[in-house]
């Protein structure tokens, strides 16, 4: 399905995740963050950029890996993206919800 985000028509799935990362830009990230009631600071962007890099390198994401990444520890990750940080952060970053689970 399509949704207007930051004035552009963007393809998303039923859970609101972008289905095509190429459509993502910073203004879309800002608007998705606002929907989650998060205002993005430079620290948020460091984490989001890290997640996008891992995604491009096809590294599966998990809370454990992020905690050991050296970019952010789990406690701070929760402070930046409260409640369900990995789900929220990946949505804002425009990448798929991690399938960390079988």
């Amino acid at each position, binding site marked *: 399905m399509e949704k207007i985000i930051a004035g552009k028509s963007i393809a998303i799935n039923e859970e609101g995740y972008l289905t095509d990362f190429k459509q993502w830009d910073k203004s879309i990230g800002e608007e998705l963050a606002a929907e989650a009631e998060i205002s993005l600071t430079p620290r948020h962007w460091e984490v989001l950029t890290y997640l996008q890099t891992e995604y491009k390198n096809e590294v599966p994401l*998990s*809370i*454990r*890996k992020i905690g*050991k990444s050296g970019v952010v520890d*789990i*406690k701070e*990750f*929760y402070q930046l993206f*409260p*409640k*369900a*940080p990995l*789900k929220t952060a990946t949505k804002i970053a425009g990448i798929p919800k991690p*399938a*960390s*689970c*079988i």
Partner: protein
Amino acid sequence: MKHLVILGAGTAGTMMANHLNHHLKKPDWQISIIDERKEHHYQPGYLFLPFDIYSPEDIIKNIEDFIPKQVELIKATIDKVLPKENKVKMADGRELNYDVLIVATGAKIAPEETEGMKGSEWQKSVFDFYTFEGSLALRNKLRDWQGGKLVVHITEMPIKCPVAPLEFAFLADSFFKHKHMRDKVEITYVTPLSGAFTKPKATEALEHLLHDKNINIESDFAIEHVDNEKKQIVDYGGREIPFDILVTVPTNKGDAVIERSGMGDDLNYVPTHKATLQSKEYSNVFVLGDASNIPASKAGSVAHFEAEILTDNILHFIKGEPLKEEFDGHANCFIETGNGKALLIDFNYTHEPVEGSFPFPGVGPLRLLKESRMNHMGKLAFRWIYWNVLLKGTHIPFVSATMSESGKHYA
């Protein structure tokens, strides 16, 4: 004489010893299997032991009873594998050279990964049921427990048998009903996932059951520590869940020998090609069962399906032929739902569990993703099948290694 070495005589390793024994014979081949343990445990039985449904004798047999005579069983602790030298070193100093290595060292719980989990309340009010000792301690606790808050908890994925904690919650509901004390027990299911299970249609069905059985669900809970004094679990976001009994599934990790050998990822699982089961790093090393990092369930049924395909691939490898990229992640799991009923799910890498009939399309007799007594009988019969058919590597009639899509109701 060439040498094929299997590490681990659990479900996966034992099946491979039996399969390959039919194909690789002396004087051309010697098969050896290494394990330090004396006993083979029927791990699905750990689920039933706490509720006095099974007794320890149902679960434990001798390892050597299931290894063919022609296969050399070496009872020793593995120090490490030297994959570049095609060598296995044992703790007693012995060394074994191999031409082909099969890693089947499984996965284990690692409660020490979570702060406070193995603290003062361990096996007093904090229990696991993924070890025989944990399951037995829990049985003794539940026998005369007077009620309170029972919290069933998953630390992080992946875990062995991802449905087991749900089954535990369902069986607990049934157990306390039979003891006429269900009203004295509050059951809460705590998961790091967003819902009851990892796949959407099954999650829907299972959440419905949790609701029916008056079991609360707390999702998206990433545990930070266990507070032994206040008897609560706390997540990274500060959410607190109090318990009188905590039944947790700790972090699961591959065996420490994988770490010592430098062959694993951050959870000690061996990077493995998901369709051929060949190690990504070493062409003469193959991995099956819980020891690999493939995105399939860590379950005995998966190891069983893998074993059929891996046997073919090892024979191809030995002849210098290309490997078959055939393994599809097929898993087939009974889910006990209590009161003498069970669900059955059948799925693979690409197809989630849905409703339907199994193994005969449109006929059954087993129903997929629906509670039935027949499914429960299937689960109980499975213990006999495990000891008498599965470990011996005998093909189970009508159930193919790759998943069948017929008889299943995909949208």
